[in-house]
C-alpha cells in the first residue's frame, strides 16, 4: 500500500513530520517498507553525455552515439539530430519511457540495422519548446550531473506500507489516517457531506440471483449520463502515479482513486455496451470472457460473474471485461459498488491465477457499509471532471448487515499484557479506532466497526489496545533460571554426540537440501518409495532424498572440480521413507576420498564412532550384505548381535556411481533404540594382576571364510581365560592352496585368579586349535 503525506492530509489534520509519521506507523503495526521519491512521467529522463558520435553505416543522416548515462558502460543510441557530436551534454530517454510530445513508449529497436537503446531528445519532444531541429544542448554546468534526472522532482515521497492480511482497512488512505489519529497523531477529518444532484432512477435492472454460495450480497450502482471521458487532470495523474499505477482515463483513474482513498473498489461499465439488464450470478462451467488484462479466462462452476444477456461481463470483485470497458469516447457509465465474499473471491482468483487490487481487498474483507460512500465520492469526481448527470443509487441486498458486538472483560488486557491499563484508557483507545462502547461497566459491550472484519474476540481487542498504547510500555520480566526437564532427551544427546564424533575424525560437516534430483536419488533409493514434490523449485530438486549420499556425492564432485582431491564430508539429517509426517529417519553419512584409503579406513571411522557413542565392539557383528550403491565386494553392514538392530553400512561406493570413494551411514534411531533396550550400568572395574600370556596361531581356512567368525569361535571358547583375539596377518599365496588363506592371530590368555602354568596354557591352546579346526574346517598351519 502506497501513499503520500500530501494525500494523507486529505484525511488527517496533523502537524507531524514525515519522519515522525513513519516512526509512528512502524510502532502501530503498519510497517513502512520503503520511502522513495514520487515517480512521474518525467523522472526517467536523464542527463547524459555523448562520448563518441559515429556515422551510421547504413544511413547518411543518422549517427551512432555512444552515450555516458552515469553507468559503467556506454549506451548505444541511434540519433538523427544533426547537432549530435562528441562531448555534447544532452537529455537521454531510456527504453520504457514515454515521450511527452507524442505519448509513445520507447522500445529497443533496430534502426537501419543498428540497435538503439533509447533516445536523445529534442526540446519539442519533451514539450519544452517548439524547437525540434536538433537534440537538446546543455551547458557545461550539467557535466557533474550525468546520470541524474533532468527534471526536478518536487512531488515529495511515497511511503510504502506492508499491510498485514488482517488489516484490510489500511489498504485505504483513510484507514491509515484513522490509525494515526487514534495514536494521537492528529484529528481525522470528517467526510464532507457530498451533495450531488441525483436525477431519476437507475434504469438498468440489476438482478442479484439466488445462488448457492452467491459471493455478491450487496450490489450498489448508479448511471452517469452524458459524460466526456478524458485524460485526468494533473493533480489526479500525480496521485495515480504515486500509487505506482499508470493514468488511463479520468473514469478509470477516479475508480482507482476511490479504491485507494477509501479502500472501496468500484467498477465502471460503458453502459451502452451492456445488453439489457445485469445479472450477478454463479458462472457455469465452460463460460469464458476476455478480461481487462487482455487474457481470455475459461470459468468453472460457481464463480461469481457480472453478466448481461450476452454473457459474462466481468468477475465479481476481481476484474472487469473488455466488452463493457470504458474508453475515452464512452458517454454513459454504470458505476458498480458491491460487496463480494472474501473466501469465494479468493478461491476463484486462485483457481484462475488472477491478481488485482480489487481482489486483494475483497479477499481480505471490505467494509460493506462503504458502498454508498464510494458511489458518492466517485460520482462527484466524475461529474466535476467529465460532466454529466447522475441517477439515484440502486441497491440490491441479499443480506442485512448487522453490527458485531463483543463482550469484553478489560481485566483480561492486563492479564495478557502484564501491565495495568486503566479502563478509561482502554475505552479511549477503542473509541478512537471507531469502536463503539455501549456499556461501560465491568464488562464492556463493544460494537465492532464494519471496516474491521479481523476483530472476532477479546484477544483481538487486546491487540488493538497494546498496539496503540505502544509495545515499548510493556515491562520486561527477567526469565527464571529454573529447569523442569533436561534440555536434550536421550536421542538428541546422541545426535549431538554423533555429529561431533564424526567431525573429530576429520570430516567437514555440511548441510544440504532435504530434496534432490530424482535421477541421482534413484541410485540410492533401493526399495524406498519415491516422494515427489508437486511444485519443485527446479527439476533437479524434485524429490525428497532417500539417502544422504546423492547430495553429498554431488558436492564432493563439485569440490573435486574446484581442485580439492582429498576430502571428507559428512551430514547428519533426515532421509525420507514415506510421504507422511514422521516417515523420516536420521542418518549420519560420511564420504571420504583420499589417496591410500581402503575399506578398513572407512570401517575404522564408523566403528570408532559407534564405540564413542557407547556401543562396544563385542556387541556388533559385521555382515557383507549391503545396498546396491556399495561395491559388493568391499562393503559391510553393522548389526547389533542382540536385538539385530542395523546400525549402519560402510564401504566403497559403487564404482558406477563415483570413482574410488568411501562412505558410511549410521542409522541413529536404530542405535538409540538399541541403547535404550540395553542400558548398561558401569560395573566396578576388576582387573587381573596375574601374568598374561600371548599365544600365536595361524589357521588355514577357506578363502571366503570370514575373519570375524574365527574371532567369534575363539572368543566363545572360554571368556574367563581368553581376554583378547587379534588378527595380525592374512596370507594367500605360496605354500597355501589356491582356494585357501592363512589367518594369523594372537590370543591373550589370562586368569583372574592365578598365574597360569605351562600345563594350563597348553590345555587352552589345544582347545583353541581343536575348536577352530572343527568349527571352521580349518587346519593349524605348521
Amino acid at each position, binding site marked *: 500500500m502506497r501513499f503520500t503525506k500530501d494525500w494523507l492530509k486529505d484525511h488527517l489534520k496533523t502537524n507531524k513530520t514525515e519522519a515522525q509519521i513513519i516512526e509512528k506507523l512502524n510502532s502501530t503495526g503498519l510497517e513502512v517498507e520503503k520511502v522513495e521519491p514520487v515517480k512521474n512521467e518525467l523522472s526517467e529522463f536523464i542527463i547524459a553525455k555523448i562520448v563518441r558520435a559515429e556515422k551510421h553505416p547504413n544511413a547518411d543522416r543518422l549517427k551512432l552515439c555512444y552515450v555516458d548515462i552515469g553507468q559503467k558502460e556506454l549506451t548505444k543510441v541511434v540519433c538523427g539530430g544533426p547537432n549530435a557530436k562528441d562531448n555534447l551534454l544532452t537529455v537521454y530517454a531510456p527504453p520504457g519511457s514515454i515521450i511527452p510530445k507524442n505519448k509513445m513508449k520507447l522500445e529497443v529497436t533496430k534502426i537501419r540495422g543498428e540497435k538503439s537503446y533509447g533516445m536523445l531528445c529534442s526540446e519539442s519532444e519533451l514539450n519544452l519548446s517548439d524547437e525540434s531541429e536538433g537534440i537538446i544542448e546543455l551547458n557545461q554546468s550539467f557535466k557533474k550531473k550525468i546520470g541524474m534526472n533532468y527534471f526536478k522532482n518536487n512531488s515529495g515521497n511515497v511511503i510504502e506500507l506492508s499491510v498485514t492480511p488482517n488489516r484490510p482497512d489500511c489498504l485505504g488512505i483513510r484507514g491509515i489516517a484513522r490509525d494515526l489519529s487514534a495514536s494521537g497523531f492528529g484529528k481525522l477529518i470528517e467526510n464532507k457531506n457530498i451533495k450531488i444532484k441525483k436525477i431519476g432512477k437507475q434504469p438498468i435492472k440489476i438482478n442479484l440471483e439466488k445462488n448457492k454460495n452467491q459471493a455478491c450480497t450487496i450490489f450498489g450502482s448508479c448511471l452517469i449520463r452524458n459524460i466526456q471521458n478524458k485524460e485526468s487532470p494533473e493533480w489526479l495523474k500525480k496521485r495515480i502515479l504515486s500509487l505506482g499505477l499508470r493514468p488511463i482515463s479520468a473514469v478509470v483513474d477516479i475508480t482507482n482513486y476511490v479504491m485507494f482513498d477509501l479502500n472501496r473498489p468500484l467498477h465502471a461499465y460503458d453502459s451502452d455496451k451492456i445488453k439489457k439488464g445485469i445479472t450477478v450470478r454463479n458462472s457455469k462451467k465452460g463460460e469464458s470472457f476476455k478480461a481487462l488484462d487482455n487474457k481470455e479466462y475459461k470459468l468453472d462452476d460457481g464463480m461469481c460473474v457480472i453478466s448481461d444477456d450476452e454473457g459474462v461481463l466481468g468477475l465479481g470483485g476481481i476484474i472487469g471485461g473488455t466488452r463493457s470497458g470504458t474508453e475515452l469516447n464512452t458517454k454513459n457509465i454504470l458505476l458498480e459498488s458491491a460487496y463480494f465474499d472474501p473466501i469465494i473471491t479468493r478461491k476463484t482468483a486462485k483457481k484462475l491465477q488472477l491478481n488485482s487490487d480489487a481482489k486483494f481487498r475483497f479477499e481480505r474483507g471490505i467494509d460493506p457499509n462503504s458502498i454508498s460512500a464510494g458511489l458518492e465520492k466517485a460520482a462527484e469526481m466524475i461529474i466535476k471532471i467529465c460532466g454529466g448527470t447522475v441517477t439515484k443509487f440502486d441497491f440490491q441486498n441479499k443480506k442485512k448487515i448487522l453490527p458485531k458486538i463483543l463482550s469484553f472483560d478489560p481485566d483480561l488486557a492486563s492479564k*495478557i499484557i502484564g501491565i495495568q491499563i486503566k479502563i478509561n484508557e482502554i475505552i479511549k483507545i477503542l473509541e478512537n479506532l471507531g469502536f463503539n462502547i455501549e456499556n461501560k461497566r465491568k464488562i464492556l459491550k463493544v460494537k465492532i466497526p464494519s471496516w474491521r472484519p479481523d476483530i472476532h474476540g477479546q484477544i483481538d481487542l487486546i*491487540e488493538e489496545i497494546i498496539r496503540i498504547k505502544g509495545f515499548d510500555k510493556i515491562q520486561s520480566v527477567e526469565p527464571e533460571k529454573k529447569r523442569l526437564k533436561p534440555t536434550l532427551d536421550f536421542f538428541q544427546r546422541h545426535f549431538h554426540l554423533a555429529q561431533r564424533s564424526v567431525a573429530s575424525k576429520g570430516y*567437514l*560437516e555440511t548441510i*544440504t537440501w532435504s530434496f534432490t534430483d530424482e535421477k541421482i536419488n534413484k541410485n540410492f533409493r533401493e526399495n524406498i518409495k519415491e516422494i515427489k514434490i508437486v511444485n519443485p*523449485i527446479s527439476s533437479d530438486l524434485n524429490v525428497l532424498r532417500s539417502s544422504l549420499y546423492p547430495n553429498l556425492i554431488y558436492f564432493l564432485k563439485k569440490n573435486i572440480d574446484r581442485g580439492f582431491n582429498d576430502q571428507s564430508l559428512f551430514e547428519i539429517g*533426515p532421509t525420507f521413507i514415506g510421504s*507422511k509426517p514422521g516417515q523420516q529417519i536420521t542418518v549420519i553419512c560420511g564420504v571420504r576420498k583420499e589417496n591410500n584409503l581402503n575399506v578398513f579406513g572407512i570401517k575404522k571411522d564408523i566403528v570408532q564412532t559407534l564405540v564413542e557413542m557407547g556401543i562396544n565392539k563385542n556387541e556388533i557383528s559385521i555382515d557383507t550384505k549391503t545396498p546396491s550403491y556399495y561395491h559388493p565386494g568391499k562393503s559391510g553392514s553393522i548389526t547389533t548381535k542382540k536385538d539385530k538392530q542395523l546400525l549402519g553400512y560402510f564401504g566403497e561406493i559403487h564404482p558406477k556411481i563415483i570413482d574410488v570413494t568411501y562412505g558410511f551411514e549410521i542409522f541413529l534411531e536404530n542405535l538409540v533404540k538399541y541403547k535404550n533396550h540395553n542400558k548398561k550400568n558401569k560395573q566396578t572395574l576388576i582387573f587381573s594382576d596375574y601374568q598374561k600370556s600371548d599365544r600365536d596361531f595361524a589357521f588355514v581356512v577357506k578363502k571366503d571364510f570370514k575373519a570375524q567368525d574365527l574371532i567369534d569361535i575363539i572368543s566363545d571358547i572360554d571368556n574367563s581365560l581368553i581376554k583378547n583375539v587379534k588378527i595380525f596377518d592374512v596370507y594367500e599365496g605360496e605354500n597355501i592352496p589356491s582356494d585357501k588363506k592363512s589367518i594369523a592371530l594372537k590370543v591373550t590368555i589370562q586368569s583372574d585368579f592365578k598365574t597360569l602354568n605351562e600345563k594350563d596354557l597348553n590345555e587352552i591352546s589345544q582347545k583353541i586349535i581343536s575348536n577352530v579346526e572343527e568349527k571352521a574346517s580349518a587346519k593349524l598351519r605348521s
Partner: protein
Amino acid sequence: MSDFAKLKNELKDKLSKAQNSKEVDVIRTEIFGKNGLINSEFKKLGKLSADEKKRQASEINIAKQDLTKIFNDKIGEFSNTEIDERVKKEKVDVTLPEKDFRIGKIHPISQVIDEISSIFSEIGFSVEEGPDIETEYYNFTALNTPENHPARDMHDTFYLEENMKTLLRTHTSPVQVRTMLKGKPPFKIIAPGRTYRSDSDQTHTPMFHQLEGLHIDKNITMGHLKGCLNYFIKEFFEVDKIKMRFRPSHFPFTEPSAEVDIGYKIENDKIIIGEGDKWLEILGCGMVHPNVLKNSKVDPNKYQGFAFGIGIDRLAMLKYGINDLRSFFECDYRWLNYYGFDPLDVPTNYRGLSK
C-alpha cells in the same frame, strides 16, 4: 692375600680399564656369571668349617657389593657416552612438516543451534522436534490459518500431494501444536529445525532453519516474552546491552503479535549489534492465540503464554559475519573449513558460547 682377593682385584682392575660396554659385558660374566668368580667362590663354601664359612661368605658378599657398584658405575658411564654418541648422529630437520592431520569442522548452523540450546537451557527450556513433512492441518489450520486465509499467501509452500494435504513445513510452528497435544501444561520448549519455502534468490533459499519457542503456563505475559527475548539476544551476541524494538505485526497463530528489531551500526564494513540507529528485523513473536491453544487441547481460560520464531541462518550470518545465505548450503570445501567450528568447541553455559 687370598686367591680370591687377588682375583677380585684383578677383575676390579680390568673392569675399571674397560673401554666400552662390550668389554664390561665380558667381565660381567667373569664376575657374576654361572661360573664366574662370585658363584664359584660361593660353591667353595660348603667345604669349609662353620667359622671359616661365615668369615669367607661375608668377604664374598662385600666383594660382590664392591664389584657391583663399580660395574654399575661403569655401565652407566658407557651407556651415557654411547647415548651421547648416538644422539649426536641422530639429528633430523624438525622443520620438515609434521605428519598429516585433518581437522573436521562443525557447520556454523549446527554450532549456532548448539549455542541457542545452551542459552535456553539456562532458563529452563528443553528441546523438542517435529517432522519435516507436515499435514496442511498442523502447518496451517491448527495454527489458526484456515484454508483460503490470505496469510497462507505469505508462505510459498512445497506440496507433496496434488490435493495439497501434505507439504514440507513452512515454519517450525507446527511443533507448538504437536508438543502441546502430547503433553500437559506448563510447556517451555524450543524447537530448531529445517523449514521450506519455494523461494530462491539472493536472500532466500528453498530450505532454511528456524527456531520455535513456546512458553505456556498460568500467568505468562508479554512482559515475560520481552524478558526472555531480551535475555536470549544479549546472551547470543555476547553483549552487555542490546537495543531492541517490538513492532506490532500479525501472525494468525499469535495475538498480540510483534516483530522484533535489533539496533545495529556498520563500522569499518563490520556490523556491530546492540548499538547504532539502524534496525534489523530478526524474529516474530506474540502471545499464543486462544484458537491455537484450543486446537492443542489446552484451556485458554486457564493457560496463556508466548511463542516466537527466529531465523537461525540469519542469526548465524549476523554473529559470524557471513554475507551470503546461499553459501551455507553450497558445501564449498574452502567455506566449510573457514566458517566451520572445531568439534571440540562445544558451546556450554559454564565455559561460554564461543572460543
